[in-house]
C-alpha cells in the first residue's frame, strides 16, 4: 500500500526533482523545504502561532542559515509516519528531518539516503523512584507494561532472557490504558523508546516521582535523510550536521562565535571560514558554519534547548554526548 502510494506520488511529480541541482533549486526558490513530525516533544512541535521548535526543526534552520544566512527561510511540512518517505520522494521537501530510525531496509530499498544520526534513541525502562532501583539489571521478577508494537515486546523479552532474569509483561492496546496502569502501580516498569519514556513521564500524575534507567536495550538511531540522486546536496546536509557537532567539540557557541573567529586554533579557524575554502566546495560561502552556529547554536546548545534539564522532558545527554564525554556524537574533521 505504502509502496503503491510512493510509486503513484513519484509518477505524479516526476523524477526530475531528484536529479542534480537541489541546492540551485532551493536558492532560486528562496526557502528550504523540511519535512517534520506533526508534534513530538523535543523533536518538532508547533506553538499556537505556528512557530516550530525542536531538534529536527533546528537542524533544518541550520541548513537555511548556511544557504541564506537567514535561519527563518524554511518551510516546515508536518508529515505522518506512513507518508514521510513518499512525500520526500515526491519532492514535497528537500530534507526529511522527522525522528526517523535509520535502518538498512529504509536506506537501501526506499530510494533515500540517510546522512547521519542526530539523536541516538533506544528502548529503555522507566520506574518509580520509590522502588529504589538504579539499573535495569535490578529488575528481576519485575512486571513490565508496554503497548502492543512490533519490536518493543521482543526487545524486552531478549533483555530479560540475556540477563537470566524473570519478568512478567503486560501488553495494552492503547497508550491511555497502559499509562494509567503504570501510574496505578500495576507494573514496576514502563518500557518503550527512551525519548518516548520521557514524553510518557510528562503525562503521569507526578512526573518527578519517576526515573528513566540508564540502560538502552535496542538501537534506534534517528537522523535526517534526503532523496538519492544528488550527492552534492547530500554532502551539504551531512556537513551541516557535522558542523554542529564539531562546533560543540571545539567549544564554539552562538554567544562566542564572533570572538572565536579570532581564535589562533587552526581547527576553529577552518570551521569558521578563516582558513581554507571549505564552504565554496559545498557551493556556499566560506563562513557557512559560522552562520549556522551564530544563528542556531552548536549541537549541545540545540540538545539542551529541546531536551535538556531546563525543558519539561529533562533528558540526559547519555549516548548523545560528545565522544570525548562518553557519548557517540563524533564528526569527521574539517580539513
Amino acid at each position, binding site marked *: 500500500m505504502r509502496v503503491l502510494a510512493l510509486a503513484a506520488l513519484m509518477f505524479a511529480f516526476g523524477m526530475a526533482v531528484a536529479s542534480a541541482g537541489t541546492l540551485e533549486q532551493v536558492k532560486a526558490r528562496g526557502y528550504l523545504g523540511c519535512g517534520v513530525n506533526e508534534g513530538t516533544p523535543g523533536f518538532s512541535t508547533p506553538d499556537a502561532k505556528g512557530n516550530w521548535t525542536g531538534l529536527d526543526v533546528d537542524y533544518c534552520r541550520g541548513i537555511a542559515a548556511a544557504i541564506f544566512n537567514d535561519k527563518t527561510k524554511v518551510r516546515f511540512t508536518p508529515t505522518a509516519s506512513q507518508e514521510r518517505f513518499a512525500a520526500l520522494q515526491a519532492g514535497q521537501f528537500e530534507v526529511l528531518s522527522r525522528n526517523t530510525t535509520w535502518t538498512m531496509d529504509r536506506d537501501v530499498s526506499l530510494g533515500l539516503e540517510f546522512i547521519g544520526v542526530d539523536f541516538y534513541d533506544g528502548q529503555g525502562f522507566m520506574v518509580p523512584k520509590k522502588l529504589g532501583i538504579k539499573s535495569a539489571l535490578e529488575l528481576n521478577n519485575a512486571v513490565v507494561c508496554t503497548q502492543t508494537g*512490533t519490536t518493543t*515486546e*521482543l526487545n524486552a523479552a*531478549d533483555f530479560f532472557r540475556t540477563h537470566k532474569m524473570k*519478568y512478567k*509483561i503486560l*501488553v495494552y492496546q492503547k497508550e491511555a490504558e497502559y499509562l494509567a496502569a503504570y501510574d496505578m502501580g500495576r507494573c514496576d516498569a514502563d518500557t518503550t523508546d527512551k525519548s518516548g519514556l520521557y514524553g510518557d513521564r510528562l503525562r503521569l500524575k507526578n512526573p518527578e516521582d519517576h526515573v528513566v534507567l540508564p540502560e538502552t536495550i535496542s538501537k534506534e538511531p534517528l537522523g535526517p535523510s534526503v532523496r538519492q540522486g544528488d550527492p552534492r546536496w547530500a554532502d551539504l546536509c551531512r556537513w551541516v550536521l557535522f558542523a554542529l557537532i564539531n562546533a560543540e567539540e571545539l567549544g564554539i557557541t552562538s554567544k562566542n562565535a564572533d570572538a572565536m573567529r579570532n581564535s589562533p586554533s587552526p581547527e576553529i579557524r577552518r570551521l569558521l571560514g578563516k582558513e581554507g575554502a571549505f564552504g565554496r566546495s559545498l557551493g556556499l560561502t566560506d563562513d557557512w558554519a559560522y552562520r549556522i552556529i551564530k544563528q542556531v547554536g552548536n549541537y549541545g546548545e540545540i540538545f539542551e534547548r529541546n531536551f535538556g534539564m531546563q525543558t519539561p522532558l529533562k533528558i540526559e545527554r547519555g549516548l548523545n554526548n560528545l565522544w570525548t564525554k562518553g557519548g557517540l556524537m563524533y564528526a569527521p574533521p574539517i580539513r
Partner: protein
Amino acid sequence: MLRRSVERMAARKSARQYWRSLAWQLAVVAAALLVMAWMAVNAVESLQRQHIASGFDFLNETAGFGILQTSVHYTEESSYGRVLLIGIINTIIVAVISIVLATVLGFLIGIGRLSMNWLVSKVCAAYVETLRNIPLLLQILFWYFGVLEALPYPRNSVRVGEGLFILNNRGLYLPLLQSESGAWLVWGALTIGVAAALALRSWAVRKQMATGVRPATTGMVFGILLGLPALALAATGIPFSLNWPHLDGLNFDGGLHIFPELAALAVALATYTAAYIAETVRAGLQSVSRGQREAAAALGLKPSLAVRLVLIPQAMRVIVPPLASEYLSITKNSSLAIAIGYPELVSVFAGTVLNQTGQAIEVITITMGVYLALSLLTSLLMNWYNSAQAMRGE
C-alpha cells in the same frame, strides 16, 4: 379409492418439491463455495505478487516474546503455535469462570426480580437496568482500574501467614497443590467416591418416589466420599506437596497466581451478562402458568421449594435456548480483554503474533476458526442439555 389417488398425487408433488428445493440449495452452496475459493486464490496470488509470505509455516517459528498468564509450559523459545494454544486456553479460562458466575448471579437476580418482597424485586430491577445499559468495555475498565486502585503495593501486601494468602496490586497468591508420583490413585479414588455418592443419592430418590420414605444415606455418602481418598492417601503416603508463594526480586513468585486482569475481566463479563440472564430467567418463570404455583402452594410446598421443584424445572425449557446465546456472547466478549492486557486469543495471537509475522489473513482466519469452534461446542453442549431437559412423554 379417490382418496388414495389424491394422496398419491400429493406425495408425488411433494417429492418433486423436495428434489427441486434440494437442487436449489445445492446450487446456492456451490455458488458460495466458488466465491470463497475465488477470493482465496485471489488473495494468495496477490500476496505472492507482492512477495509477502503466506501459508501456515509460521506456526512453527519461534515466538520470542513473553506472555503474562501461561497454564501450559511456555518460554520465549516456544513457537507461535504454542502462543495460539495459550491464547485459546486463556480465553476458555475466563469464559468458563464468567459463565459459572454469570449463571449463578443471573438466576438469583432473575428470581429476585419476581420476589414478593418489594425491596428485593426493585433492587434486582435496578441491577438489570443499570448493568445492561452501560457499554461492556467501560465496565471492564471500571472494574480493572477500580481493583488496581483498591489494592496495596507489593510492599504493603495483605498477608495471612507466610504465604497462605497474599494480596496486592499484582494479584492474589495462594499455595498451589502439586501432584507427585502416585497422585493419580488419590484422584481416581476421589472420582469413584463422587460417582458412588451420586449413584447412592439417585437410588435414594427413586426409593423415596416409590415408597415415600427416603432411606438414610448421609453416613454412607460421607463414608465413601472421604473414606476412599483417605485410604488412597494412606496407601501412597500423601503424594502431594504445596508450592508456596515467596518473595523473589521485586515480586512474589510461585504458588497459584491470579492476575488482576483475569479477576476484573471475569467480574465484568459475569456481572454484565448476569443482567441478560436474569431477564431470560424471569421470562422463563413467567411462562409457567400461575396455576402451577397455586397448585404447589395448595399441596403445602413452601415458596422456596415451589420455585425449586415446580417452577424452575418447567421454566428451564424456555430459559435454556436463550441461555446458550448468552454463553456464546461471554466467549466472544472476552476478546475485549485486549484493552486491559489480559492475554487471551485476540490479544496474544491476533495482536502480537499478527504484528510480528505480518500474516494477517492466516492469523485472522485461525482466530475466527477458533471462536467458531468454541461457539459450536458451547451450542452442542447446550442443545444436549436442552434435549435432556425437554418435557418427555407428551
